[in-house]
């Protein structure tokens, strides 16, 4: 029963009836099973790409690494975002295949337009890469009317969303490898907490009633 309740299996299981009584007696065990699955997920980074060629994957990885860069703390690269996106494009984001297939060449065209000596995005310096990406970000770039740019813009828009999602999702869900995204933002890995939760509630003296004479104040 316990292994059937691992969080990973939650994804694929049907609606087998588990009674409330059973759960209340057993939820600590369920949480333990969930924690076990967390551990399992940590050691199961996918090794093969389903959708991307290795060359494409290197380009996506390079883009993701500018969206959430690695510095003194891990970034999209360490979170395995490219694997999350690769899996997504054959599952939950299957509708975005075309955006990637058409958008990546359009982005590479933009790279060559800006830097004629360069063949591809991944060969550019981080500063050059940011310059290209800023030109595709509809918030920081003036609108361009050629269709190629539109394709690259919507491609960057989608890669940005997928990268952020892949960086911050529950590590059980195929992204956020080893929970590094949560580590960066200060989200502890557990799914069960006890108060006090943080700085401001740790010295809370307990509830004190409001003054009994409080009148209904009308502003």
């Amino acid at each position, binding site marked *: 029963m316990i292994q059937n309740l691992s969080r990973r299996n939650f994804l694929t299981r049907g609606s087998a009836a588990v009674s409330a009584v059973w759960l*209340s007696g057993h939820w600590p065990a369920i949480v333990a099973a969930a924690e076990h699955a967390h551990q399992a997920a940590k050691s199961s980074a996918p090794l093969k790409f389903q959708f991307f060629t290795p060359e494409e994957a290197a380009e996506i990885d390079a883009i993701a690494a500018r969206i959430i860069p690695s510095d003194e703390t891990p970034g999209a690269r360490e979170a395995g975002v490219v694997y999350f996106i690769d899996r997504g494009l054959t599952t939950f984001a299957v509708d975005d295949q075309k955006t990637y297939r058409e958008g990546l060449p359009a982005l590479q065209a933009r790279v060559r337009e800006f830097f004629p000596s360069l063949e591809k995005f991944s060969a550019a310096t981080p500063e050059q890469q940011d310059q290209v990406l800023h030109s595709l970000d509809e918030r920081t770039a003036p609108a361009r009317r050629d269709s190629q740019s539109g394709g690259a813009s919507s491609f960057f828009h989608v890669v940005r969303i997928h990268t952020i999602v892949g960086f911050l999702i*529950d590590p059980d869900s195929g992204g956020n490898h080893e929970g590094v995204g949560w580590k960066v933002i200060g989200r502890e890995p557990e799914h069960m907490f006890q108060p006090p939760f943080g700085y401001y509630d740790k010295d809370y003296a307990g509830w004190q009633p409001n003054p009994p004479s409080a009148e209904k104040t009308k502003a």
Partner: protein
Amino acid sequence: MKLDLPKYKTSDEVDFVIVGSGAAGGIMAKELSTNGFRVVVLEQGPYLTESDFVHDEVRVIGEDLLTNKPRLQPTSFRKTPNEKAKPQRALVYGRLVGGTSVHFTANFWRFHEIDFVERSKIGPVPGADLRDWPITYADLEPYYTKVEWEIGVSGLAGASPFDPPRSKPYPMPPLPVKGSGVIFERAARKLGWHPFPAPMAILSQPRAGRGACINCGFCLSFGCEVGAKSSSLATSIRMAEKTGRCEIRPNSYVHRIEMDNNGRVTGAVYFDEQRNAHLQKAKAVVVCANGAETPRLLLLSANKQFPNGLANSSGVVGKYLMLNSGGVTEGVFEHPLNDYKGFAVSRVLHDFYELDPQKVGFYGGGGLDARFDQTPIGFALENWPGVWKDHSTSGDRSQLPPGTPRWGKVFKDALAHNFSRTMEIFAHGTSLPVETNSFSLDPDLKDAWGLPALCLTYKDHPDDLKLWTWQNQRAHELLDAAGAQKKWSHPVKESEFAVHLLGTCRMGNDPKTSVINSDHRTHDVKNLFLCDGSSLVTSGRGQPTMTIEALAFRAADRITALTKRGEIT
């Protein structure tokens, strides 16, 4: 423990068919089956249980695991009835056994006495059709208490000086205070306001075979994996099944209520999972499908006798929709709150529940709460999950300060700094009932079954927007008093998206201006009852589910009494 669950044949005329299994439908099912009636609950969504409730934001929020599915159920929006509506995602509701109560925030205030008598106390409000309810707070008080004790609400009686009278304390103490709650409480008291522990439909202690909250941090938008959230799924639905007289039939999409030549409804027609249509026969029908789908079902059930929609001789089915305004003001503090831990809300205040229109220049009132209800992705990504679903570039729902870059090192540093240090002041407020605000059938757009889709028509009453702005100003005062390092409000703008679905088949004594009477019986059809958010006459100040559930307990009593007296057959 295996329950012996009944399976009724569609040709078997049961006592009641209940359409919908959410906040109202679950309680209706529990009460009517407990009272000895044979009940079939038809629920359009699946029957999921605790083991299905994952923390995967893509699956749960991005892919609508628990909610209505835009791809199957498209919707449209327009501001006024003269415009052609544009297809766009217009509402969200729980589409599974337990309905929206499965994934809601679980704020569980009672309405106050004023909410039932606003018209006679305040007088008319220009541009709105404000009316008194045919029942009062005193009529509903025993049923509020019933909700607290039977469904399970945590809270502290007497903590708010503005609370309406109550006959019993809460059955269990409040949930623990969060950092946001401590900050809110201290600052509010500095300002002379009266914060109190939030009443929440989440167990603070094990109760009735259910576990207490484990503070997992995935609450709003998620189902509770330990059954601590007092959803209909975790409570009333299971109690209904235990009677042995109630069948919950999931994946059953009701699209028509049939009527005979004597003007009585005979049952509900639904599509099963294979899209085969069936008529479940019943002596009476109770529609608890929510404030959007209940009026839609009546409009879809138009017949010779009711060409404008079943039980719609008044013409008000679908009208007077109220969504509750909701202002959000963010505050960032010096030290980590880690407010992602736990549930959403631990402190509320009701000092502004009854504002004086002469002084503030608008009608309405509301409550402020201290919360953090975003998941990590929702915190980081503006307009999540809209950007995921349709890659739309509009929206401003990120919780990062305005002007923060959307990618790159500065973005990452802002995430790293702010996620643990941010809290929200959420302002809940009145929506005035305006006739042209409505759910109707879109003339062109169809759902995956070929049925007319829901069209949302909505333009906030000007007073609602003024209230919203006024409350955001109070939120700023509070965050100033709290010493927030940064604070900002999300823009006040006209609503284009519906979460609270209220008032669309409103209750009243006059059959010309209301759809149901105080027994929740439609004025037009003797054996047709409606009970959910659509029944509300006014919007309260937000947080309607507690009142919807109290109404359901009361309606079930009324329906039982009428049936036992032979008055519905």
